[in-house]
């Protein structure tokens, strides 16, 4: 998606078709994630399934709406580094408190 005028008309038309397909996919997955709630799954599978659906939806947005799938390598490297540190921030505090966490939950 560089600014060298690589987008001719046909190219943009193809983009639009992709966007509409992604839109449909996101809407269906939203209904699925709400529907799954009524299955009353146990805690762990319910969380894993809901997060898996959210990751698929988030990836669709990032790859297609944000053009990450056709983006330059530098940006992919930047985002991979961000994901790495994101998980560091996410899991670091939990791991340090592991002994204090109530095992019943």
């Amino acid at each position, binding site marked *: *998606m560089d600014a060298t005028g690589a987008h001719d008309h046909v190219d943009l038309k193809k983009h639009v078709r992709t966007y509409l397909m992604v839109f449909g996919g996101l809407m269906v997955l939203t209904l699925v994630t709400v529907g799954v709630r009524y299955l009353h799954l146990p805690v762990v599978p319910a969380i894993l399934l809901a997060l898996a659906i959210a990751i698929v939806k988030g990836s669709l947005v990032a790859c297609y709406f944000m053009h990450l799938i056709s983006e330059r390598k530098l940006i992919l490297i930047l985002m991979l580094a961000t994901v790495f540190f994101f998980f560091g921030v996410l899991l670091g505090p939990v791991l340090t408190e592991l002994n204090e966490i109530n095992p019943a939950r």
Partner: protein
Amino acid sequence: MSSAIPYTVETRPDTGLNNVKLGIWIFLASEVMLFGSLFAGYILLRTGNPTWGKGSELLSVPLATLNTAVLITSSVTMVMAWVAAMERKLGKFRLYMGSTVALGAVFMVVKAFEYQAKFHHGAPPSYSTFMACYFTFTGLHALHVLGGMIINFYFGFPGAKMMATDPQQFANRVETAGLFWHFVDLVWIFLFPVLYLLNFQAPPA
């Protein structure tokens, strides 16, 4: 291209990108860390709390589902606005950009009704750890929606003059605003299950 700021349109040879694109992605990386720290706090508070979820029964899943659909639709109108900017069609661009701003406003109105209902039921942020997390997450997210609406309104209306003078730079600006807007949508995609769908309240002892 006589621009005071270099590489707004032309590609920088060493990065292979224009500076606008690299800049917005670095900003989004910092946003990931901002929300990441909140999610870390959420996990810690949740796993350490035997009475997690107090107040979650007051949340409206239908309203949140509606807001999810509104935000996803606004992401599509945003990307269509970018296509119109690339095609240099001002009327079509304004229609899609106006729709994006309007859908953002719908999201905020629904959110305002939700907030009002919580306060009405006596569940402000101080009600429980869950409600504190709920208001912190959704409040920060709503500020992002508001910020995105202001940017999109500016590019959609007063700022759209640039399409006539410098169309490629303008399309880049729209793409940048779009990247921010899609990021805001992406955050909501995670907030929706985390706050609304995954609360398993322990039965009262």
